[in-house]
Each structure stands twice: as C-alpha cells, then as structure tokens.
C-alpha cells in the first residue's frame, strides 16, 4: 500500500499551488488560466464526493481495525483488550477455520474451474461461428440475475424429493438412487458448499466469458495472421501470442475472480444464513455483529482478516494500473 501511495504522491513536474487546488499542466496552454470560480468549482467537484467516499468507505475500514482491538458490544465506552479477539478467533472460535477454508475453496473452485471455463467459452465464441450470439446470450443471462434469485432458482434444483427438487427427483425417478437415500444437497454440511459453488459458477462463468471476449476482440488481428503464417496451430497461437498480449485483461480476470470469492455472501445467506457447512467470513461478520449478536469488536476482527486478504488483489491491481498510467 505504501508503495502505491508513494508513487501517487510523486507528482509530474507541475507548478505547485495550494494543496488540492487544480493547477495547470507544466506546459502553459492558452486555456490554462482558470478563473478563481473555476478552481473553486473543480475543487468542489472533486472534494465533496472524495470526502464522502473516504468517510463511508476507507474510514470505516480503519474503524473496523480499531474496533477489532476492543470488546465493544454496542453500548458503553470502548474498552481496549489487545489481541484478545484475534486469539479467540484463531484458537477457539469453531466457525472461523471452516469459514476461511470455505472462502479459499470458493477461490480455488473459481480459479480452477469457473474462470477457465469462462475463458474457454470466450475463445470458442470468438471465432466466426453460426449462432454465436445465441450462445453468448444464454451464457450471459445468469449474470444479470441477483445472487438472491440465483439462490432460489438453484433451491428448486437442489431441494429434497419432498420439496420436489429436480435433481433428487431425477435420481430416484430413474432408479439411480433409491428414494429414501437421495442426497440432501443443501442440508448436508459435507456437500452443501459444493452445491452452492455450482450455483455461483453458473453466474461467474458468463461474467468471465463476456470480459474475456471483449479482450479477445481487441487483439490486433495481424498478430494472429503472422502466427498462422509462421505455421502455429490454434492452440500455440492462443498460448504464445494471444494470451501474452491479453495481459491487462488477464489481471482484471484475476482480480474479479479473487474479489468475487471474497465477497461471496448472498447465496449462502439465502440458503441457511451461512451456517451448517456454508460458513463464510462474510456471514460470520454479519451474524456476530449485526443480525444475531452485537459482538462489534469480535465481528470487526473477522472483518480485518477479510480486509487483509482483500488488500492483496487490490494492491496487485493498483500497481498494475499505476504502471500503465505512467507509460
């Protein structure tokens, strides 16, 4: 983080004026003389939203860090307890390691399955193909749905036979599994996370496909022609020519994949409020501090864990953007 800020603060050789007041670029241009009113207006345009954003987002993240060292329960003065919340979280709280491992499983599943699948679809649909837009529309439709709706739609697939769930009815109807031993996809804590991951991927694949397809369309066609003339086959062309020039999109894909797996909340919450096999860091935070208990300090400690993990992809992405900005 400090590296990023350091870079940002190193200004282009601009004429220094009052801090925060827009100053013209080093090369004086005929329009560079802004009136006082214009300067004030620009300062307001940037300053007001910036203030609100910093207060509501970044200051809250900082307050989370501070609260995580207290045992505050919502009333009375703040009482600092050092690392007590963290030691309890790491050593005794039974839901923490399952939640963390579910988040990591989510990430792994996206990285190993959903994201490559989206990229594969993009590569398949990038070539001239009859009906390509029909395929694209079908794969993209789940992306416009709310995750809460995705949860319900998949509940109709996963419910037990008594609830007329499709998969279990299919298994018993075709005689593959006897009617009284069909899996309880959402209730059985050893398998329900996988069921949720399938539902989440249903939406994630189309998202990645569209992002990647847009990137592929922007690749200079002469690169592929040159590769074809040199005798490269399609696979070689993709891995040795297209994939490397797609580096900026690849970073976006990585960031989107990581962030989406850290943000995972809605489907698990819809199904069972993130319990009994569906614990996630996000649901632990809200369950401990807002919905079910008021352990503000303890919930904040979980939030800090999530914050630290999410800063990894964010910093990676920012340094990337900065580098391209400087060029």
């Amino acid at each position, binding site marked *: 983080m400090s590296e990023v800020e350091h870079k940002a603060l190193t200004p282009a050789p601009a004429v220094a004026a009052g801090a925060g007041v827009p100053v013209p670029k080093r090369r004086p241009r005929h329009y560079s003389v*802004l009136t006082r009113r214009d300067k004030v207006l620009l300062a307001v345009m940037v300053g007001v939203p910036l203030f609100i954003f910093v207060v509501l987002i970044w200051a809250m993240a900082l307050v989370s860090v501070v609260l995580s060292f207290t045992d505050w329960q919502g009333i009375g003065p703040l009482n600092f307890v050092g690392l007590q919340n963290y030691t309890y979280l790491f050593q005794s709280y039974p839901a923490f390691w399952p939640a963390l491992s579910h988040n990591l499983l989510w990430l792994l599943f996206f990285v190993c399955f959903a994201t490559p699948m989206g990229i594969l679809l993009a590569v398949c649909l990038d070539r001239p193909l009859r009906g390509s837009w029909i395929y694209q529309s079908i794969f993209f439709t789940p992306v416009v749905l709310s995750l809460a709706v995705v949860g319900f739609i998949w509940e109709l697939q996963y419910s037990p036979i008594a609830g007329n769930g499709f998969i279990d009815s299919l298994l018993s109807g075709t005689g593959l599994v006897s009617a009284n031993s069909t899996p309880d996809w959402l209730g059985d804590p050893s398998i329900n996370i996988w069921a949720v991951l399938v539902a989440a991927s249903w939406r994630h694949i189309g998202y990645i496909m569209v992002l990647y397809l847009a990137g592929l369309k922007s690749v200079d066609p002469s690169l592929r022609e040159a590769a074809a003339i040199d005798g490269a086959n399609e696979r070689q062309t993709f891995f040795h020519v297209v994939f490397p020039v797609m580096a900026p999109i690849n970073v976006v894909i990585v960031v989107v994949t990581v962030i989406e797996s850290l943000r995972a909340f809605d489907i698990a919450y819809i199904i069972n409020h993130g319990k009994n096999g569906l614990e996630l860091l996000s649901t632990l935070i809200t369950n401990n501090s807002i919905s079910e208990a008021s352990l503000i300090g303890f919930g*904040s400690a979980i939030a800090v864990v999530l914050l630290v993990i999410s800063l990894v992809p964010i910093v990676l992405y920012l340094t990337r953007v900065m580098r391209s900005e400087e060029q």
Partner: protein
Amino acid sequence: MSANVMAGQRTTHNRARRRMSRVGLHLFLIALAIIFAWPLFYAVYMSLRPYGEIVANPNGPFSLPATLNLDNYFSVWNGQNLNAYYWNTAVITIPAVLLTLWISSMLAFAIAKYSWRFNLMVLMIFTAGNLLPPQVIIVPLYRLYLLLPLPAPLSDNGLIYDQFAGLILIHTTFQTGFCTFVLSNYMKTLSKELMEAAMIDGAGVFTVYYRVILPLCRPAIAALATLLFTWIYNDFFWALMLFKSGGKRPITAALNNLSGTFFTDPTQLAALSVLAAIPTIVLYMILQRNFVRGLTLGSTKG
C-alpha cells in the same frame, strides 16, 4: 503434377477435419447452453404449474402438465403485496443511478481533463475502495447509520438508518468508484480540440463539462446506466443490513423474508423468483449491447 495432387488431397482432408471440429464445437456449445438455460427454464416451468397437480402425480415434477396457468403469479403478487416492494426498488434504484452518474461524471471530468497534484491518488482511492468487499466495512457503517441524524422529510425516525436515503447514499458512494474509473478512462480518449475551442470562446469549467464533455460521453453513460441499474436492483446485502423493517426493503432483499412463506410450495417460490428476475432480464434483452460495452469499458482501457 503429383505434388499438386497431393496438396489438393491435403486441403480436402484439412477441410473435412475442420468441418468435423466445427461440428464438435457446436455439440459442445449446445450441450453447455442446455445446461445453462435449464435452471431458469425449470423455474419458469414450475411457476406455471398448479402445485396440487405436481403433488398428486407420483412422478412429481416429471409429470407432464395438464394445466399451465399464471395462477401462482397472481396469488404471489396479491398475497404478498409485491407492488410495495417494487415501489421501494424504484425509489432506491432510480435516484441512486442518476446521482452516481452525475457525481462520477463530474469527478471523472475533473480528474481526466485537468492535471493537478493528487490526480492519480484520488482515482486510486475510488477504484480501490470500490473493490473492497462490503462486509469489511459493514459493522462500523451500521453503527454510523445508527448515529447519523437525518431531518424529517427524508427520514421517519430521525436517523439515516432504515431509510431510503441511507441506502441511496451507500449505493451512490460505492458505485461512484467504478463509474469514475470507467468515465475518466473514456474521457482521456476524447480529443482535446473541442474543449480547447470552447475555452478560447471563454467557456467556464461547468460549461465545458456540461456542454462539451458530457454529450460526448453519452455512449459510456448509457452503458454505465444499464449496468448500475442492474447492480443496484440486484443488491441484497446493503438492503438486508441497513433496513430494519422488512416492509421498506426492495424486492430482491424482500425475497429473504418472503421465501419463508412458500417453504411448502415450490411453485410459488418459482413464481416469486421469476418475478424478481424479470426486470433485469427484460433490460438485458433490450439493451444487450450496453451491458457488454459497460463491462468492456471497465476492463479494457479506453
């Protein structure tokens, strides 16, 4: 001569192989498309069937339908007072989209078109903040909402918590990060001449923004409006956390309370899901290109 014949055989061979691989590709894509379309199709199918008919049939959901009608939709809509939830959605989503576009276009304009000291840092603050998982900030934000006062016409309890205004505020703030990033990239690609000409003619900053830059950004703004509408409409988390009363929640967050009612009747649950999904699906069907363009602007530069 013989070389020519061999070359000819090879190309027909290649063509045949290419056709084979093309058929294989279509088969693969069709199979996947069926799998992808199935859950939504099944939800629609279930929603059209009377539940009694499914229960009565030993084959359950596999039985062929004797009747398909919209009864489930009517009973869900009237029984659950969905009008109110859709109204809540509109009251939150429309102002939030407009505010976000207005604020982020001004911000992007000031960042992209004028060089000053902390340009890049401001952009980073917004972009990075937009990437934070909302759960990281929800605990202090929830407490802050319980403390911040808000006067009467905007609030019925004197606080910003449990109010439409509070939800509009957090949506606008959070989405401004993404939109500013996209719009500033877009504005950097616009040519400088128009802006310079306007400034020579004595136009002030606001005139340049409103009369010159904003009209040029129309395609990007249209694309972002589509995306923003979908994202804010689809929000579940903020509405769940920052509203106390279920009656004020927008339709997607209200699903959480309503679902309990239909625990025993999956056909009504299906109808409710389809109803909640319809607005964004219709928008997507009409403005497909905007969706793709919006996402593209966010991921590729310019």
